[in-house]
């Protein structure tokens, strides 16, 4: 029983992480973890700056199809 509960909680955790990644909810955390940010000497963008920049980049190329 305990093993089953453990498996369910593990699966929920994976699904939740996947949902956050798919929706863009965890995009900022991923940005902070990226190699480019870690390697750069200057401070990373704030959450607000990152959000707006990200949207402007995404919607300047075809990203939704017919």
């Amino acid at each position, binding site marked *: 029983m305990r093993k089953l509960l453990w498996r369910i909680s593990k699966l929920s955790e994976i699904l939740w992480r996947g949902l956050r*990644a798919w*929706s*863009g909810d965890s995009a900022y955390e991923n*940005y902070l973890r990226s190699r480019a940010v870690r390697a750069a000497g200057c401070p990373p963008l704030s959450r*607000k700056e990152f*959000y707006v920049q990200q949207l402007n980049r995404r919607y300047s190329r*075809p*990203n*939704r199809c*017919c």
Partner: protein
Amino acid sequence: MKRALSIIVWVAVGAVGAAGFGAIALHRGEHLNAVWFVIAAGCCYLVAYRLYSSFISAKLLALDDTRATPAERHDDGRDFVPTNKWVLLGHHFAAIAGPGPLVGPTLAAQFGYLPGTLWLIVGAVFGGCVQDFVILFCSIRRDGKSLGEMAREEVSKRGGFIAQIAVLAIMIILLGVVALVVVNALKSSPWATFTLAMSIPIALLLGLYLRFLRPGRVLEASTIGVALLVFVVVAGQWVADSPSWARVFTMSGVSLAFAIIAYGFAASALPVWLLLAPRDYLSAFIKVGATFSLAAGILLVHPAIQMPALTRFVDGTGPVFSGKVFPFCFITIACGAVSGFHSLISSGTTPKMILREGHARLIGYGAMLMESFVGVMAMVAACAMTPGVYFAINSPASIVGATPEAAAGTISGWGFPLSAGTMTGLAHAVGEHTLLNRAGGAPSLAVGMAQIFSNTIGGDRLLSIWYHFAIMFEALFILTVLDAGTRVGRFMVQELGGRVWKPFARTAWMPGILLSSALIVGAWGYFLYQGVIDPLGGINSLWPLFGIANQLLAAVALVVATTILLKMGRTRWIGVTLVPMAWLVIVTMTASWQKIFHPDPRLGFLSYANAMAAQIAAGKIPAAKIAEAQRLIFNQRLDALVTAVLALMILVLVVEALLQWTAILSRRRVPVLHETPYLRTRWAPGAEGVSAGGDD
């Protein structure tokens, strides 16, 4: 032992799929159950994925998991983000699945369920999936370059220019035609118009929330947004029941067209965080949720298919759109089988996020199989309703008549029994004044979906809620395509204009933003207006035009793919991309020729214009209607010109590519491949489980 078991399992899956195919192809007489469609499609997809995509991966592309992908080379946390393959599959699917796979099969159901279903499955397995997969591979090997850049580098400069123009053309026609689908779904419907109108303040509210209150917290904002959307779907009924409010939201086709044009302009010119992005978040959640719900509904309800396998309209006299099953079934169903637009996504965001080359198989080939399944579900929903009702909803008034009695008489005369009371009763049950003459596919799909959903939850009591939920779902993501497409079109216009006058290319320069937005909105708005005033319903002219443009882009993508593979020396299996390319060229050229020159005025643009001109000359058109008739003549000639230009572009590109291929194969030219040099990955196998990034 393991191998023997695997062979047995796959032979069994193949046999079940063949039985499903046999059932839908050979069944006559009593109504066929929709489960056969799911079985046939599901088993074919499994076998195709297991065998054909694995053959392409190993023999044609030779995918190499030891090679670093663009996401590893550039890992900047913005564009280049290494992403878990299942998350990226979700991203890619959400990006490629738009209104096309829902609307196209619904329209093609006028031929019966068989031609469209076969094309959806076979076209996807051998055409659409191959295109998406190979272009994704080519782009991964070129640091995520776009289709236009690859066409310029690998085919010729002219090829690159053609690709760029084709993208802009398809964008304009696509936006015009999908806007027309929304107009036909919303006209004279206060409930649906209110629901969609309310999605704008909801999106604005979420935009402000995500920008100022909780930046980037997409999940919590989307949860609030979806709850508000469900509320406004229910509240729409109160608006429709209130005479004064119903009057405010009852709009004609022309008024709706101007409202949508104004919306498109605002969405393109306003900051992206305010309206476009939050609407896109809502649309993505609703889209994925409704798609899975429809699949579950079909499996639970397993409705009987009422439409015959083939109707009399395979001869080209169909009321929804004119033209024979060849080539028009293959033009009408573009998305769901082969869609050139997908190549923009496969050479856009996705190649920059892929973790390993081997994942391209699941993401490129697998996501397109999923989209094809969405198309099959739309076909099931359209064919599960009574054929008479289907034709009454989708036929223009000029063919079946404007009243329930006239429509019932005409459609019953075709051999599809229908009573006026059925249409009146159905309209009442879904909370509409009328369901007649709503060409475009969205309302009939909504009726089909509502019937499936209401048989699962709520029964007839909730039919009207489900119908308006389905309309909201379709209209919401059509508007998302509209505003995202208008914005991208604006950037393209600015880039092209910048070649003539440099300041125009500055994307932050307000006069440039306003002028380019006006140009792009004016272009698709013209096609929309033309469709709204067309007595044949607009869809008859514009949907084939969109299909031709979309297949043109698919032909461009497959020409680029074939050229790259030839340069790589993969000549033995070149038929994998060459055969679908040749098929698309044949289909597109035949359809273009017929749309321009066919003597039937309902089919040929020029003969329609000439017939109209002859009527004016013979004095058969009242003086008050002459200006309108002349506008129709101009529109038909314009459509003929656009079709001719698209066809000419295909011919130029094919000739250009043939010259290049001959030179490579005869070894007169040393092929120059613009691949990024090999770099060995530094990420250990299994690293994909750790990283689950995403920028979307």
